């Protein structure tokens, strides 16, 4: 079982050992990069077909079923279509920026995978400040979206880009704030260290995952919503809202450049989902002692796939928000809730040393009394009750 758990690490060491000594660091890195690109490239192809199939199921239709058995070869057909399509660049476009934007969006996202621990001893680089690196890399995508929208010289593109940037900046705040309690609990910014801090079981059978604490549950909720918004997923996909903005900053992109944007968006979703698994769902740890014989990367994959399915489900279920609702939701609900969650986490950690009977229950009660009223009040009253009809300043 030990071998199966470490099979990828052992393979990598073996392959590296075949190379001449001078080239070994380079070969070792290249192997990891190739593995990451292969796994998540395949993951991207599989997710597109799965998403379309699931959406079809939930909307009472078939979904793609023409190419290959059960339509499973649809991603290959899509890829060939994208590659052979004409690449149209608008006459007025800023050619250089128009060309660079898809690259600037996709390239940094790959870097984000470098710090995620996919299994025991399975992270490409172990940075002391791994989570900081993750968020720093993610911030580059705002500039890429701006480049795409602005260089197209099209008002829909620019509007879409402006919306996207406003949305990304707004939702980055709750995303980071929701991860701070986890850092406090682990006492480290390094992602493998955070996973290590979630090992073991409370009371002998409840895994010590962060999501199974009151502050962790609230933080995970905020994190999920913010993650969906950061990766422009439905119900937060209004930067590309095709019914109002044609396709937002993607309007003037076709062929392989469009495919690159598509890839970048899905990879961003994968990266932030992987981060969510690492921060809240115990990373690669098994949920129970008697399940620990399964390999660690299998557990990471299972949690990862479950979360991806949750995002697809959300897309099939929820209608798109309006821009003002979207921004109000971030600033008036998620950010205050994340701040209160921070206080609750501090109370939870401070009371960790309590020894008397019913200590765990008292701590739960303490955190719940901090969080539940805040959730209700923020959701019901301070947000101004049910959303009012929009008042237009210029269109009336």
């Amino acid at each position, binding site marked *: 079982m030990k071998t199966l758990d470490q099979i990828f690490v052992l393979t990598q060491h073996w392959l590296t050992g075949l190379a001449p000594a001078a080239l070994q660091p380079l070969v070792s890195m290249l192997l990891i990069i190739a593995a990451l690109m292969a796994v998540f490239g395949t993951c991207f192809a599989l997710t597109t077909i799965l998403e379309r199939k699931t959406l079809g199921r939930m909307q009472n239709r078939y979904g793609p079923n023409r190419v290959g058995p059960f339509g499973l070869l649809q991603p290959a057909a899509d890829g060939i279509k994208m590659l052979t399509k004409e690449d149209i660049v608008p006459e007025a476009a800023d050619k250089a920026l128009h060309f660079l934007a898809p690259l600037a969006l996709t390239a940094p996202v790959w870097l984000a995978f470098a710090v995620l621990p996919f299994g025991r001893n399975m992270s490409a680089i172990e*940075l002391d400040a791994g989570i900081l690196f993750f968020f720093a890399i993610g911030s580059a995508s705002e500039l890429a979206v701006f480049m795409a929208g602005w260089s197209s010289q099209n008002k829909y593109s620019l509007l879409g880009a402006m919306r996207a940037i406003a949305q990304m900046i707004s939702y980055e705040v709750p995303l980071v704030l929701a991860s701070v309690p986890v850092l406090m609990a682990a006492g480290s910014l390094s992602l493998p260290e955070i996973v290590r801090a979630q090992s073991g079981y409370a009371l002998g059978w409840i895994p010590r995952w962060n999501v199974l604490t009151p502050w962790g549950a609230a933080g995970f909720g905020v994190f999920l919503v913010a993650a969906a918004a950061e990766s422009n997923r439905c119900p937060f996909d209004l930067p590309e809202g095709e019914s109002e903005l044609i396709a937002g900053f993607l309007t003037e992109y076709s062929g392989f450049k469009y495919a690159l944007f598509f890839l970048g968006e899905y990879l961003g979703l994968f990266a932030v989902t992987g981060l969510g698994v690492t921060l809240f769902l115990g990373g690669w740890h098994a949920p129970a002692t008697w399940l620990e014989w399964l390999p660690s990367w299998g557990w990471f994959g299972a949690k990862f796939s479950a979360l991806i399915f949750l995002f697809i489900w959300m897309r099939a279920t929820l209608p798109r928000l309006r821009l003002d609702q979207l921004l109000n939701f971030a600033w008036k609900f998620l950010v205050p809730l994340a701040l209160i969650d921070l206080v609750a986490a501090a109370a939870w950690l401070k009371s960790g040393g309590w020894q008397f009977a019913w200590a765990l229950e008292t701590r739960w009660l303490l955190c719940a009394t901090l969080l539940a009223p805040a959730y209700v009040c923020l959701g019901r009253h301070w947000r101004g009750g049910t959303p009012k009809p929009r008042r237009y300043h210029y269109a009336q």
Partner: protein
Amino acid sequence: MRNEIAFYLVAAFTVAFAIAAMTLRDLVHCALCAAGAFAGLAMLYLQLDAEFVGFAQLLVYVGAIAVLILFAVLLTRGDEVRPGRAAPARSWWMGAGAAALVLAAIAAPILLSPSLEGGAPGAASAPVRRIGEELMTRYVLPLELVGVLLTGALLGAVVIAMREEPRTEDKAGGIPPRFTPTPGNPANPR
């Protein structure tokens, strides 16, 4: 040796982007090049083993300041960009003087500091944990002061930017009087 090559590459990258940010004609290109220069600076920090400063530089400057600059450019852009070379402004000597003064103000303490003597210091890497501990113990008061200052600035910006609603709207129950529907004068003549 390898470190030196990396340093010169990163330095060339940073300086090239900085020069482009000053000389390009299109303000948006300038802003994007400035973001590139910020990223180059972050790489320099990382090369010096200052992980926290490097990532913070990326997060704050590339992620936030560059976007702020872009928004400022878009919101204040008057006429369309004219093609041609950038003509230096008439008062360029004032800018040059200010730049020289700033450079002198930064260079003087560095050149006068005793750390220059005795060669390069040893590996003075500051782990993130130590930075956090220092910020929370020794430098907690300055940290709090900066926090208060920034919060004040944020609130001030919101107050300045807030649209002042006309008083009449409140009294008329949310609808401005000139849009009150009357028979024969529909509220929304379109």
